[in-house]
């Protein structure tokens, strides 16, 4: 607080200020005076002088070298107390009151402080100002009315105050700011000030604003905020993960196997029936530990206290550790497949009707095993050859033997000429069975009789004979005498060519005969293994030769080997060609039946092992998708063998029926099978000297 000392109207007591009414204008000139620089201090050139109150603008700079200044009493008192202990106890009263007294106040002891003798006049003052180098630092203390020379510290303090700095040198004016009074409402406010009244009164402005907003909401100008879509923000990273994937998170929970609850035998004092007897104990000890029903011996103790320590404790801990160490960390992916699903889906046999299912007729008459059977192209007659040296001809529909022809030896093979216009049965001889249209068999006889001897005689591997009259009446038409016994004969589908297989080890195993020209030829120069059976292709000029292990397919026109089918079996016994010509089945003595698809591969398309013993005969049906195989186990197995025109579709092979009927004789069962040409009937000839018809 700075008070103009010369202003009499302002009285100051402590911190309160008393303003005398009507004297405001007097204070103003004081301020004015103050602002005019009455508090000026003489500074060297360049120093700026600020008012002590620090409110004066910096433009109030005194440039004069000598300018008197006056400090407030407060400053003086403060300065005085620093230099000397002359205390004036009058307090903060205007010193003008003591103008007329010799003393200026009272010291601490109550004695008058007398005014120093001041006899300096204006001139002295001026001289002092001019001469005294400390004049600029000399201030007049009104309380004691002495001149005090300010020390350097006091000067620097004044300078700091004047430059707006803090008085204390050690004071840090840039301390971190702590904002105790913030706009936030505090739970425990710093002040205990009661709330304003305005905080209780509803604000009219706010009310107006709110009503505007309500109106805007009603009118639909303001729309409610859309709820935030928080669903998309987070998602389960592993939600779509396959739990069965090998690298997938191990989510599968494998519950621990439930332990069996302890029973009576685990008790320390089991009932006596749980204790093992001596024999049981011996048996238990001799058993393999893995086979034991109980892993321990039940023991009886009188009291729990006498139960000894568990002897296998360490052992079991060790095994447990082993279990943990060796337990699979990954759950084993067990192949969860129903074994039924692995079986290929085949149609049910009852959907593949018709096929022979039941034995209908038995053709009895032969006295020894019937080696071979053959059906006439019309399906009315059945020819059979037997070891009793006869050929019998049967009526199919009744089982009546119509004709018996004696031939000179056991009949190994018999084939009816497939051409319906020629009525011939090939055995070793050509036989006219007289069982056809008269015209046909007369024509057949004429055909054979119309043979003209060629001019030049060509060397023939075999001898052709026209039979004697009595043999001719029996039915013989031509006799082809082979040097060795004949295993098999077969006709070409046109009915003029005929192939025979000789049981010979030389190169003359297969012979092809032409009936109309009575000519024979040996197609093969080299012996390529024992020939089992031969067959003509039904359509193309191919010739199938089955040796022990393989089937060779020759092109008769180009005279070259076309294919070699590896049968994958030890000894082929029989062979049949599908009427379409692209599929071949081979029966073998090691009880297998191999189906070859000639377009597919030289390996078997399918190998059927349905029979228990060696296969003796196989046959295809001419019209129905059926094939049959006869075996030494006395059964005939009929299979559905559908060949599709579509080359991409593999043949469908379904076994449909096992036909039993033949009794085993000399460990031989069925020796030959043949299908009826038009009906789904199968004939089988057996070692029990019967032929059976299954329909």
């Amino acid at each position: 607080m700075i008070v103009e000392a010369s202003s009499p109207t302002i009285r100051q007591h402590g911190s309160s200020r008393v303003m005398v009414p009507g004297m405001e204008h007097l204070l103003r000139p004081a301020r004015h005076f103050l602002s005019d620089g009455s508090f000026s201090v003489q500074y060297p050139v360049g120093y700026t002088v600020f008012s002590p109150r620090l409110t004066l603008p910096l433009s109030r700079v005194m440039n004069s070298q000598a300018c008197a200044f006056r400090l407030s009493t407060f400053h003086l008192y403060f300065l005085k107390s620093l230099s000397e202990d002359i205390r004036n106890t009058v307090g903060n009263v205007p010193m003008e009151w003591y103008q007329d007294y010799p003393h200026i106040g009272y010291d601490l002891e109550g004695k008058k402080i007398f005014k120093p003798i001041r006899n300096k006049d204006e001139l002295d003052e001026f001289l002092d100002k001019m001469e005294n180098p400390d004049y600029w630092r000399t201030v007049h203390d009104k309380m004691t009315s002495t001149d005090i020379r300010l020390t350097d510290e006091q000067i620097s303090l004044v300078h700091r105050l004047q430059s707006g700095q803090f008085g204390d040198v050690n004071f840090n004016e840039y301390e971190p700011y702590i904002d105790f009074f913030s706009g936030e409402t505090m739970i425990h406010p710093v002040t205990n000030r009661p709330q304003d009244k305005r905080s209780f009164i509803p604000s009219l402005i706010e009310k107006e604003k709110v009503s505007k907003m309500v109106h805007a909401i009603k009118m639909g100008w303001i729309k409610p905020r859309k709820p935030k879509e928080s669903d998309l923000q987070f998602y389960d990273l592993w939600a779509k993960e396959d739990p069965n994937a090998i690298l997938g998170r191990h989510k599968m929970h494998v519950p621990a196997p439930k332990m069996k609850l302890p029973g009576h035998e685990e008790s320390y004092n089991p009932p006596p029936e749980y204790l093992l007897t001596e024999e049981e104990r011996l048996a238990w000890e001799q058993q393999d530990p893995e086979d034991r029903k109980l892993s321990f011996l039940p023991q009886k103790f009188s009291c729990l206290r006498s139960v000894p320590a568990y002897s296998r404790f360490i052992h079991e801990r060790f095994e447990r550790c082993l279990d943990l160490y060796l337990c699979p960390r990954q759950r084993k992916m067990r192949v969860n497949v129903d074994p039924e699903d692995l079986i290929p889906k085949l149609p049910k046999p009852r959907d593949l009707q018709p096929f022979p299912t039941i034995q209908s007729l038995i053709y009895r008459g032969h006295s020894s095993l019937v080696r071979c059977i053959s059906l006439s192209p019309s399906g009315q007659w059945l020819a059979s050859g037997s070891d009793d040296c006869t050929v019998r001809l049967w009526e199919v529909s009744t089982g009546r033997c119509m004709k018996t022809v004696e031939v000179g030896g056991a009949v190994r093979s018999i084939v009816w000429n497939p051409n319906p216009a020629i009525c011939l049965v090939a055995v070793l001889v050509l036989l006219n069975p007289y069982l056809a249209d008269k015209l046909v068999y007369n024509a057949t006889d004429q055909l054979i009789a119309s043979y003209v001897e060629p001019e030049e005689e060509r060397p023939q591997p075999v001898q052709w004979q026209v039979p004697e009259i009595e043999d001719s009446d029996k039915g013989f038409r031509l006799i082809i005498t082979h040097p060795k016994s004949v295993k098999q004969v077969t006709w070409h589908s046109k009915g003029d060519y005929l192939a025979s297989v000789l049981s010979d080890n030389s190169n003359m195993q297969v012979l092809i005969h032409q009936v109309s020209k009575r000519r024979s030829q040996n197609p093969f120069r080299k012996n390529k293994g024992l020939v089992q059976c031969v067959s003509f292709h039904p359509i193309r000029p191919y010739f199938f030769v089955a040796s022990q292990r393989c089937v060779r397919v020759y092109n008769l026109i180009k005279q070259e080997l076309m294919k070699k089918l590896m049968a994958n079996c030890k000894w082929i016994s029989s062979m049949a060609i599908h009427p379409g010509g692209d599929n071949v089945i081979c029966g073998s003595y090691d009880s297998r039946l191999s189906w070859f698809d000639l377009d597919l591969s030289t390996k078997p398309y399918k190998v059927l092992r349905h029979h228990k013993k060696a296969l003796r005969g196989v046959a295809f049906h001419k019209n129905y998708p059926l094939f049959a195989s006869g075996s030494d186990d006395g059964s005939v197995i009929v299979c559905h063998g559908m060949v599709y025109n579509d080359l991409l579709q593999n043949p469908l092979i379904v076994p449909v029926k096992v036909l039993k009927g033949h009794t085993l004789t000399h460990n031989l069962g069925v020796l030959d099978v043949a299908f009826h040409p038009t009906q789904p009937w199968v004939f089988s000839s057996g070692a029990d000297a019967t032929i059976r018809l299954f329909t």
Partner: protein
Amino acid sequence: MSQLQVRFFTENAKYKVDDVPFSIPAASQVQDLSNIINKLLEAKHTGHSNVEFDFLVRGNFLRTSLVNHMEAEGISTEEVVEIEYVQRFMAPQPEECIMHDDWISSVDTESEWILTGSYDKTARIWTQEGKAVMTVAGHTDVVKDVAWVKRDGVTSLLLTSSMDQTAILWEWNVERNKLKARHCCRGHAGSVDSIAVSPNQTKFCSGSWDKMLKIWSAVPTDKEDELEEQRDRPRKKQKTEQMGLTRTPIMTLSGHIEAVSSVLWSDNEEVCSASWDHTIRLWDVETGNMKSTLTGSKVFNCISYSPLCRRLASGSTDRHVRLWDPRSKDGSLVLLSLTSHTGWVTAVRWSPSNEQQLISGSLDCVVKLWDTRSCKAPLYDMAAHEDKVLCVDWREDGVRAQHANRLANFVYINLSILLKETFSVQFPYALWTILDCG
């Protein structure tokens, strides 16, 4: 359910009982019901002798207990059950055994004579008592079928067909016991398995292994038809001389794709044929067109037609006898299947006078008598044969055949002719008697 309300009725006035409902035990068998009827009749007429009855519930023979039968047929047991009763057929008894020395392929009966065809290339004529009267020899191969054509006075006409691809029309003078081959019917190219004479006896039809049906005239003439092929073969000439004048067919019906196994005439204008191609075909003889086809699933061996019930019966290789309605538009409609045989059914024949009865013969050596009202099981099995049965026929008693009256007693003799092996020289065929007192 212990009692059932039943009402008995019959069409036979002789055995009529009062038309009142009775309460009888539900578990009653045929014999119990028969006893009840007999009791009632005794009470009505004094001097009633015991008669066995058979009972029909809604047209089906009662074979089990009454309640089981009604459960199976789905008849309500709440209402009064109408039961018809008829006098029971007595079990047929073997009456006579005619020995033959080879397989018999066919049989045809007439009021006095029995004609059989045999595998020894002959046909034979027998009296009803089983005495051989005549041997018809002339065929060069097995005789497959025989048929009587007609009788006027002392001369009879008969037909035989053979595997030698001919059928021969014979004239037989009974008094002088002389047989003469009138016509040799040539034209087939396979064995002639079946012949049938038209009802008006002027034509006959033959079916053969060459898949053809041929219609021939059955009237003997003195004119010889020209045959296309004439060969100067001495053997053939001899045969022609033996077998009479050559005759050629009036008409050839072709359409079957396999051998024809059986033919018959259903009336004068219609021929019916069964074949190995699984079909039965009906032909119009006037135009030679096929009228309709009944398709089965197996080879047909034989068919028979009954003019009384107008149904066809067929025997096939799947061991069933099937009944067909030949007039149905739907070609494959099987009315009824009779299943009991265990071998191929080789012969069926409807009864000539009873519209519900038929017999069937099979390769399982059994002849069965069927009633269409009890289709589950045959009425009787006749198992006297020891070998395959190839043909069966009915015979009417000659004396009483004229009165076709329900009241009259008929004696039917069923001829089932058996087959035998060649080596067993003698083998009987049997005559069966069925007493029908109904």
